[in-house]
């Protein structure tokens, strides 16, 4: 089962054509769904690569959290491949240069990062993912892309170096890089001083990757530059890999109940991230930048869940992460369609979309409300769990920051709505095309968007099973002993 999935990851590399990309992501999705159901029965699946036993060989490990994320990654891959079918989303030159190989490499990197049970292997997967995302971001070499790209490349290079340093320290003190074995040896209190150093290095490294305050600067300056299909997948997934590794690290390697200082640090950082992100969003004029800043503030939400560190909080964080991956990618899709129609992403230049594009407006409205978390949409459930968990541990200030942030997010989204959709369309300008004609011409874009929206709505209206699943995932994540036993076969 798992090896089938791996074969898939490795086979993907050479296949360039877009149909194969879709077939690949579809297959990956089917496998991932199977994996989710298998995990539901078995709790964990472990595989040792290369035939070496656990602490020495490379371990692949899947639990509920990883399975869910793999599933959603494959889902997004599918949607993005469909979206990028649409003509002139990517110029043909870009396709020739190799959007698809880089795209699939990146997905392989992301899936690998979710799967791996070994810190050094995680580093390797990170690099696979990052280098292909470098390629994606700078693909086509427009001036803006290059300028945004260099910041992204350099800061991520430094982040990876920090990860490497942390690996060096941990290997030097414990002689292991296997996560399970590490977790076991790190419980030794005599190592606390040196492991705290490694923990902070890991926090910085993953913090940069997930755009946590104060490491978020690279995100808004690079995310909006590439074509929208690329932005959508990168924004949807890459930062979430950072959040995933944060959750993994600080439940398994450095359980936060033993590291109160770091817990406080993460809590404070998450609060500042929320506020800074949303304030940045209000200030921006470019739809893509507004979305990018909103993304930062939502990262704060997820990390807040980690910082609270109760099952319900982690559950909320995971749920919110899944919901956010879907919604954010979809919002970027919609932004892409808007940009295609209006020829610009500047809020001021786009006018009167509602008159002509009712379907698009509908999509945008629903997605905005979902993003903000108006009941009954999926954002609400995640946020509800987070707030509930926060109240239980009496973190009133972060809770209030979170609610204010939601309100401001609503404000920033409604700003787009008011200016771009509801305003009068200037008659003297060139007439906008009819939506019916437009949908026919660019049905791939709409198809991808509506597809993701349906899934979001499905999660919104029947969240029970997913909440159930994430709750179990959270409980599992908070029991590192299970992980260790499963990997080391005790």
């Amino acid at each position, binding site marked *: 089962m798992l090896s089938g999935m791996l074969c898939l990851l490795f086979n993907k590399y050479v296949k360039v054509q877009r149909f194969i990309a879709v077939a690949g992501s579809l297959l990956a999705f089917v496998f991932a769904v199977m994996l989710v159901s298998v995990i539901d029965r078995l709790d964990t699946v472990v595989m040792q690569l290369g035939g070496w036993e656990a602490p020495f060989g490379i371990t692949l490990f899947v639990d509920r959290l990883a399975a869910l994320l793999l599933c959603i990654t494959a889902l997004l891959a599918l949607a993005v491949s469909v979206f990028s079918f649409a003509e002139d989303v990517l110029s043909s030159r870009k396709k020739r240069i190799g959007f698809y190989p880089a795209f699939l490499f990146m997905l392989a990197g992301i899936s690998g990062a979710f799967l791996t049970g070994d810190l050094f292997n995680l580093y390797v997967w990170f690099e696979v993912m990052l280098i292909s995302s470098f390629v994606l971001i700078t693909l086509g070499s427009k001036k803006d892309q290059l*300028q945004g790209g260099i910041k992204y490349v350099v800061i991520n290079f430094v982040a990876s170096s920090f990860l490497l340093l942390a690996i060096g320290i941990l290997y030097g003190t414990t002689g292991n890089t296997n996560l399970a074995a590490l977790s076991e040896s790190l419980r030794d209190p005599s190592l606390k001083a040196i492991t705290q150093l490694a923990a902070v290095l890991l926090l910085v490294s993953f913090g940069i990757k997930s755009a946590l305050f104060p490491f978020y600067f690279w995100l808004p300056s690079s995310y909006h530059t590439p074509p929208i299909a690329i932005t959508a997948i990168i924004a949807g997934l890459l930062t979430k890999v950072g959040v995933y590794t944060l959750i993994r690290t600080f439940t398994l390697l450095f359980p936060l109940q033993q590291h109160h200082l770091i817990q406080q640090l993460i809590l404070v950082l998450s609060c500042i991230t929320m506020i800074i992100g949303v304030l940045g969003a209000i200030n921006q004029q470019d739809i893509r930048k507004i979305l990018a800043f909103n993304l930062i503030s939502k990262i704060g939400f997820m990390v807040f869940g980690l910082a609270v560190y109760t099952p319900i909080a982690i559950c909320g964080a995971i749920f919110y992460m899944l919901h956010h991956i879907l919604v954010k990618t979809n919002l970027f899709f919609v932004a892409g369609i808007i940009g295609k129609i209006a020829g610009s992403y500047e809020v001021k230049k786009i006018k009167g979309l509602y008159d002509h594009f009712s379907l698009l407006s509908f999509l945008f409205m629903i997605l905005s409300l979902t993003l903000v978390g108006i009941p009954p949409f999926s954002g609400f459930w995640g946020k509800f769990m987070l707030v509930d968990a926060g109240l239980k541990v009496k973190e009133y200030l972060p809770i209030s920051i979170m609610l204010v942030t939601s309100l401001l997010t609503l404000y920033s989204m409604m700003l787009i709505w008011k200016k771009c959709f509801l305003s009068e369309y200037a008659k003297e300008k060139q007439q906008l095309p009819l939506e019916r004609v437009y949908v026919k011409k660019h049905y791939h874009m709409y198809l991808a968007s509506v597809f993701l929206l349906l899934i979001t709505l499905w999660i919104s209206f029947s969240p029970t099973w997913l909440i159930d699943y994430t709750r179990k995932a959270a409980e599992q994540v908070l029991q590192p002993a299970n992980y260790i036993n499963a990997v080391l076969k005790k």
Partner: protein
Amino acid sequence: MISILTGFLFATGLYLLLHKSFMKLIAGVILFGNACNMFLLIAGGLTRNHPAFVSKSADAVAVDSMADPVPQAFILTAIVIGLGVQAFVIVLLKRIYQTSRTNNLDELTSTDRV
């Protein structure tokens, strides 16, 4: 001695990374990457004069005195990855120079404006 050298490499690498000039940025990336590799070597524990080979002639392998091969394997991987990133950075900066006609990182602000 090697620790001091590594510290020095880190300092230089970081200093160069924070420069405006493209060339210094490249040098910074290279030095910083190498500093990390050296750090891995040191953190893994240095063993002198005992390479991580098992010789055919020796009957018993003296595992205790042998250098730990794992950090070396890490470094090898990290060097390869670092090489890729460095090459990418160099090409990227060349393209930036071609499109922007500047050698100053502070002038690359077109994506940061509101």
